[in-house]
């Protein structure tokens, strides 16, 4: 008996609890006496203990993994995460929050949260957290603190957006605050707002400028023409009533007065027409191009009288445009073709269209007239710019500027090519899009 009891004690001493092996040797547990019963009961208990131990071990491991995962999330989070207790003492600070505020986590550990908030907001912020503590009942409750001002270690302030949640029921309650530095967003918003304001101001300025321009054109229309009429009128009257008594040179001067007055009258009319093109609202509809061109030709009948002119009108697809304005484009281009061919024996004018690569229709008016030097092509469509002397071909230099403005208003383009003495071709489109530029006409 004594030897078996000693064997039991010896077995217990030699058991390896770390491996869960608490079993008493089988030769002792196998006996039928009381010691054997004790050993078996003991072995059964160690089995249960071992099972419970294993379960706990795996639970601890699982919990550690969960904590590691959570720690990983907290550490790698882009947003700052700070946990505080009910006394608003900092319990946890993640690396993002360290970077955001310029502190090391150790320096913040146990400090009051107020260290991260400018003093003037302390009271307000404490109120926020307390309110949340009172209302946020569940662990998941998430409160939005919205935008608040935070304070870095160096004392500089920056805007953050924060949300808050609380955890812990039986143990100490903790608040977790998630913080996002929104300096950049605030700056971008401020910039966007500034840009919007600037844009609004420019729109207002533009509207104002347009109003002034309208008042200006109105005044030009009324006030500039009257003196011209007087200049023309009185120089004519002088010629009519006293022409027979005055010397030829004086008569020539008076005629020049009257001619120049008329020329200025024409300039004013053209200018007003141009300014109207800019102001007018586009009233677009589908227009039959062939019909419109023939109407223009009919209107230009008087310019064609007594001249030898061959006009061909090719295939002209319809367009969607402001009919009145595009009429002016054709009138100007065809009128120019007629004007600049006055010095050729037989004027040849071709009105047609081409299809550009992207299905954009390019309309053109080609003539065999005086043409122009391509070196000055960029001046063609500028106001008051002329490539011919008025004595050669009369004009005010407003027509093509008007054409360009009308075409531009429709989203199109106008350009020209020419060989001096061999004629010119004027092209235009009436809608947006890349266009292929035809090669120089041969």
């Amino acid at each position, binding site marked *: 008996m004594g030897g078996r009891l000693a064997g039991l004690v010896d077995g217990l001493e030699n058991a390896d609890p770390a491996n869960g092996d608490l079993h008493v040797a089988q030769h002792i547990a196998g006996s039928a006496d009381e010691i054997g019963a004790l050993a078996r009961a003991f072995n059964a208990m160690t089995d249960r203990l071992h099972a419970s131990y294993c379960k706990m071990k795996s639970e601890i491991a699982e919990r550690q993994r969960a904590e590691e995962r959570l720690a990983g999330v907290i550490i790698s989070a882009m947003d700052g995460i700070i946990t505080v207790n009910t006394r608003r003492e900092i319990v946890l600070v993640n690396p993002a929050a360290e970077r955001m505020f310029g502190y090391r986590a150790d320096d913040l550990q146990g400090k009051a949260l107020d260290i991260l908030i400018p003093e003037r907001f302390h009271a307000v912020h404490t109120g926020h957290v307390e309110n949340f503590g009172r209302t946020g009942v569940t662990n998941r409750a998430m409160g939005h603190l919205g935008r608040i001002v935070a304070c870095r270690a160096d004392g500089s302030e920056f805007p953050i957006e924060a949300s808050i949640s609380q955890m812990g029921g039986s143990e100490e309650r903790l608040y977790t605050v998630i913080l996002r530095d929104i300096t950049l967003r605030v700056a971008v918003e401020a910039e966007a707002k500034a840009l919007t304001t600037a844009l609004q101001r420019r729109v207002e300025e533009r509207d104002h400028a347009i109003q002034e321009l309208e008042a200006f054109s109105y005044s030009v229309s009324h006030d500039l023409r009257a003196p011209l*009429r007087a200049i*023309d*009128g009185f120089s004519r009257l002088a010629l009519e009533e006293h022409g027979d008594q005055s010397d030829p040179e004086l008569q020539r001067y008076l005629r020049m007065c009257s001619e120049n007055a008329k020329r200025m009258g024409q300039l004013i009319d053209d200018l007003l027409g141009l300014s109207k093109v800019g102001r007018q609202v586009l009233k677009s509809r589908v227009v039959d191009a062939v019909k419109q061109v023939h109407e223009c030709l009919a209107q230009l009948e008087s310019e064609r009288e007594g001249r030898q002119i061959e006009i061909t009108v090719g295939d002209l697809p319809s367009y969607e445009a402001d009919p009145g304005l595009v009429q002016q484009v054709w009138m100007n281009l065809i009128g120019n073709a007629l004007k600049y061919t006055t010095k050729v024996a037989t004027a040849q004018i071709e009105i047609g269209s081409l299809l550009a690569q992207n299905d954009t229709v390019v309309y053109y008016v080609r003539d065999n007239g005086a043409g122009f030097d391509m070196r000055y092509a960029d001046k063609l469509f500028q106001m008051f710019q002329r490539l011919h002397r008025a004595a050669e071909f009369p004009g005010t230099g407003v027509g093509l500027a008007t054409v360009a403005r009308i075409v531009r208003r429709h989203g199109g383009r106008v350009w020209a090519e020419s060989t001096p003495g061999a004629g010119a071709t004027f092209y235009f489109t009436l809608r947006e899009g890349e266009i292929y530029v035809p090669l120089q006409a041969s």
Partner: protein
Amino acid sequence: MSLFKPVELLLVEDNPFDEELALKALRKHHLANDIVIARDGAEALDFIFGTESVSGVLEDPPRVILLDLNLPKIGGLEVLRQLKGDARTRTIPVVVMTSSAEESDLIDSYQLGANSYVVKPVDFEEYTEVVRVLGRYWLLCNKTAPSAPDNTLQV
């Protein structure tokens, strides 16, 4: 201004040069017998509707009024509004004769009841021609509405 001699034409014009040119053009075509000139809108209205000293609307209205728009004191459009807004003067033909070719002026004038709208040409020959045509038409061809019994102001 005379209240007793019938007036054929009331010219409302503030620009003395335009006035002189208009008169020259009218005389050239022997159309300028009885012309009254008002040099601003107020003068025109006084002539038609009378003043405090000379009360009562004109008994024999002019056969035509040539009305400029850009006038001192009371503008041409306001003169037109008052003339056409009053039953006693509504039938007097008013020809707006102005330097303005602005669409808004055209629309406003016709809305207010103008009988015609003519843009003064800069070219004196054309101007003379316009005045001649206007004078011939309104003074010789056109028949005006007979004076209504209530055409005079009841004082």
